């Protein structure tokens, strides 16, 4: 088998197979794991945020532990999730006059105009999204471009944590994306079907297919006697 990699996670010295992720190494180490874990490798839930300092490097990066492979001498610290002290409240229904979109962005996310262009959010993003430009697009009203920036955001909130102006860029991005969908997405096939269902023109007949013509289900083995 391949050699073992030694690393430190939250102060625990851990020996791991070099093919595993930081999160798997932590789980296999016997540590209690009840937080900072979610999809275990798919990289979509944004739970397993961590800071990583690689051996011999000064830089500390923010990454997702389920997507990062272990390396010898790595030092890792998980970053806890928390409920934010401040959220940007809005109701999409308030937006139904879409002529007010620019004002809405400013009213809901007033901090966005204060972006100091420190690029901390870009550096913090484990997905490498150009977050700062997404903020700028939102402020400028380039809604399509902003929505595109945040399309693959997993809402790990690392940019929110990193932003010194409390902009909460990922939530701004989501606000923009939600607005676009709620205000402009009007598929005509869905509209037609909704009308057909509402009018009773289309419905389900549960007596079909008749039970006798339905194909028989595969047979199951009998329950085992012992467990």
């Amino acid at each position, binding site marked *: 088998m391949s050699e073992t990699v030694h690393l430190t996670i939250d102060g625990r010295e851990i020996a791991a197979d070099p093919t595993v992720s930081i999160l798997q190494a932590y789980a296999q180490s016997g540590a209690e794991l009840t937080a900072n874990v979610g999809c275990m490798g798919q990289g979509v839930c944004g739970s397993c945020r961590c800071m990583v300092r690689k051996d011999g490097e000064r830089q500390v990066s923010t990454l997702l532990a389920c997507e990062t492979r272990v390396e010898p001498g790595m030092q890792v610290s998980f970053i806890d999730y928390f409920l934010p002290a401040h959220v940007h409240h809005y109701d999409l229904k308030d937006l139904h006059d879409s002529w007010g979109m620019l004002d809405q962005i400013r009213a809901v996310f007033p901090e966005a105009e204060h972006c100091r262009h420190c690029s901390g959010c870009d550096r913090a993003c484990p997905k490498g999204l150009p977050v700062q430009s997404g903020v700028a697009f939102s402020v400028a009203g380039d809604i399509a471009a902003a929505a595109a920036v945040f399309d693959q955001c997993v809402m790990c909130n690392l940019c929110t944590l990193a932003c010194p102006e409390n902009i909460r860029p990922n939530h701004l991005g989501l606000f923009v994306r939600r607005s676009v969908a709620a205000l402009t*997405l009007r*598929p005509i096939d869905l509209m037609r079907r909704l009308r057909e269902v509402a009018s009773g023109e289309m419905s389900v007949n549960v007596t079909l297919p008749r039970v006798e013509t339905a194909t028989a289900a595969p047979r199951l083995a009998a329950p085992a006697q012992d467990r």
Partner: protein
Amino acid sequence: MTSMISHAQALQALRPGADAPMRADGLAVNDLLERFHPDYGAKARVSLRIGANAGAPCHPALAGLLESNALIDDLDLAGAEPLATDVLVIGGGGAGAAAAVTAAMRGARVIIATKLRIGDSNTVMAEGGIQAAVGADDSLQRHYEDTLRGGHNEGDRALIAQMVSDAPEVIRWLIDLGMAFDLAEDKALGSTLLRKKAGGTTASRILCHRDFTGLEMMRVLREAVELQRGIEQLNRCPAVELLSHDDGSCAGAILYDLERRSFVLVRARAVVLATGGSGRLHLQGFPTSNHYGATADGLVLAYRLGARMCDLDSFQYHPTGVAHPRHLAGGLISESARSAGAHLLNGLGERFVDELKPRDVVAAAILRECAEGRGIARDGQTGVFLDARALVAADPDILETRLVSLGHLAAKCGLDPRQEPFLVYPTLHYQNGGVMIDGDGATSVPGLLCAGEVSGGIHGRNRLMGNALLDIISFGRRAGTRAAESLGQRQAGRGGINHVHRWRRALAQAELPADVRAPLLYPSYGNFHLRRTAAA
């Protein structure tokens, strides 16, 4: 030990440029399932001895948890922080979030308690999409019949009919919440939704946001919960037991607050259990595509309080879990890939099943190839090929547009999907059965509702792609509505755990062990022990 074909040999057997031939020895569906699907074998079920389903079949590992002792004693409630609310939602996935938002919009005070954080769920991991019959060539009836047939006619017809009829309105509700769906044409108004085909469907019916539909859905729902007034979130607060009234109805739940390391006692007029599935039990040694929290907690809690269940011996093994590299084993390769035209190939370079058959059929076919020596071995892992080479060659942009997640996954696997196929093997994916519900999510226990994967009866013995995301929103909203109706009904009494005492008597009389305790809350490798932690 079954023989396998080496990875190198299998690569050699691939025919470049040509369509792979289909094997001629296909079995009849029932035959294939009975012989190769994990649900149908001798190790797949035992009879439950106590509880509402006594005498009914259940997977042995799950039976051990259902017929287990409670984690807590009466004494543990001393010093627990008491809270009261109209509606308690347990579980922070799509079903729980939909229930919470709906109940709160109807004026109920809601507490949503999650084991990890809101959004940490199988929902966020769903890639393929959501079914809704919106196409002109499609109908609610076809959706209904496909779903019924996919579940081997074992699903509850009324529930299915209601769910498929809800589907168009579910999509509209999601759009109104700000969820984006891919369109067939790029124009603001008058466009139609992009529809994909799914295994076992007779029409293109999968609506999606690229191939991370669940992520899109969950981030919108999570934000909706966070911004909805009237909802209090209790994250890192797993439910360890339900509370009951003396008449056996549900009175709330006991949570364990991992941050404060103490119990919280939540009294509620209605409880919506939306705890999801059980993939992290790794039934029969299978890897799983499931979220870390999928440990069957809701089934255990509901069963102990007397809820009736169904199909507890039926699970879905998704055909295309990652088999190599080992550290990604079990992770999902979305059905979107097959839906878009990727093929399954055995070690001889042959196709062996129509890739768009229902999932149980395709999974059984893969297990058959491996059992009969046509599987592929690589670094101790076995499986068959999922080949997307032709697909990518025909549409070079597809990994940036429709199959974004597939591209990411390929990078993690260290392979180039243009050059090399994935090695795949079935992965434990979905709990088909669960708590029996009516159309509003109500269970046989008054005051206890269920929504999402924890409930059963909708998908029969096999679920179609895209019906899970539909299920959670359709039933999540209905359960939330029903739960909010309990507003102004009789005041919740104190509530207690007398049902646990009754349960312990039943355990003793059936000579079942008292030292097996559940719910598990976390997989075995989470190294969490409530009693040790709570005592510390």
